[in-house]
């Protein structure tokens, strides 16, 4: 199951920290994501692309999961070696395109 078939998402950043928000479309989708997309699973996926350590926050009342990756953007968004600025706006697709059993 692709995470992005159950949830919408958005990337944000503050300083060197990346934050990723997923919001499930319904309760069943939220429960599935909440049980499958653990902090360790997200960390393994994100580590292919960025440094840092992911911490998960669950907000069941909003059917939302947050993953906050401190140290993901060393030196902040202006220090990036990616093409152009603000590649991190697309970082949520690392999670949305994740296939989980």
């Amino acid at each position, binding site marked *: 199951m692709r995470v992005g078939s159950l949830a919408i998402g958005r990337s944000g950043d503050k300083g060197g920290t990346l934050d990723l928000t997923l919001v499930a479309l319904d309760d069943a989708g939220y429960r599935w994501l909440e049980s499958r997309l653990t902090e360790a699973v997200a960390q393994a996926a994100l580590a292919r692309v960025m440094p840092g350590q992911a911490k998960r926050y669950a907000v069941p009342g909003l059917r939302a999961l947050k993953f906050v990756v401190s140290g993901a953007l060393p030196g902040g968004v202006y220090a990036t*070696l990616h093409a152009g600025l603000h590649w991190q706006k697309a970082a949520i697709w690392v999670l949305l395109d994740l296939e989980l059993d």
Partner: protein
Amino acid sequence: MNERVVACGAGFAGDRTEPAVALAASGRVHAVALECLAERTLVPGLRARRSDPQAGADPRLRRRLRPLLPVARANGCRVISNLGAANPRAAGLQIARLAGACGCSGLRVAAVLGDDVMALAAQVEWQEPFSGELLGAHAYLGADALREAVVEGADVIVTGRVADSALFSAELLPILLDEADALAGATTVGHLLECSGQVTGGNFEMPDGDSLSAREFAELGFPLARVFADGSAEIGLLDGASGRVDALTCTLQLLYEVHDPGSYITPDVILDFTGVKFEQIGRNLVRMSGARARGRPRKLKVSGFVEQPGFVADVEIGYAGTHALQRGRIAADALRLRLDDWQPEDLRIDLVGVDSTLGPASLPAPNRAPEVRVHVSARCADAEMAQIVEDEVYSLTLSGPAGGGSVRSERRPSLAVVDGLIPRELVRTETVWEQAP
């Protein structure tokens, strides 16, 4: 009156200018807030102010306010903005003059000062040590710093660094019940509105790929909120405006750039979003309630800007036609060989159209691509090093795979942003009044 309508007229320094005018012209809005401050405008402002004490305000100030001020005045709509950037005092004077020149004689402008804490830099607790020259240090002021200007009836309030949400919640201070959760609600409204189109359907896609149309994005309406004394609110759009406001757009924006959703720190109040509820009460109209206060921070956040020598050189070369992807890959490998004495952490080479954004997490590459671009970024100590990287890429037009071209390059100055905290009692704010001639 125990309710007020606030709206967002800009969500970043380069945002569109016409939605603010439409919101002010509606006659429904008590205040339109323009969030325009970014490191990329503040830092040039700090540099400009060194040589000219009257410089340092946002360079887009005139372009933004010239069409807005007469409409806002005619409709009794206050304008609140951090367009003051590195010099809110000078911005206040500029705005008063501009207002006089566009038929708004008598308009009262309040400049709120005090965010510049460079003189207190030694008392800032920096989160990490840094090297390089500190260009400036700015504390995030809260809505309370704008209270005098609101209560005394300023037509325009201009600030430097203020928490984005405070540009909105300041307008609401006079109507809020005297309880912390009401302030929490008002601050949450500011947080929901501060990124303009991000709560009205921008930067938003459903799982099936559904999003707004090109025309709707092109004409996207910016949000407004009718806020009540208890801090609850109705988030929506002007009648007939393009966009989408529902529980999903609101939830994504609520949690945007928030770390712990149970403890989001703003200068005025620590917010707990975990009990927030969004309820659709009409087309593109959502009722928000349930934000809670978790105390008031004892310290204010400070952003420091550190100038470091050197550049990031960001260079691309393109390939097109049959075998374009193959030629691009070979070009990238040739560059890796040419630049093999560079430190790996100071160099990035990838393919735009294949893996330049998500790297190893990118979706599988196509076998054939009609065109591809090779991208190189390198951290360079000085301009000469940057030129070497640029020249290496350019050299591929003669000494690389066939048909390399469409070269572009840019140099980004090296700028680090460092965070710190300062005891709030050290930060003194001041309101300076100007009047349009």
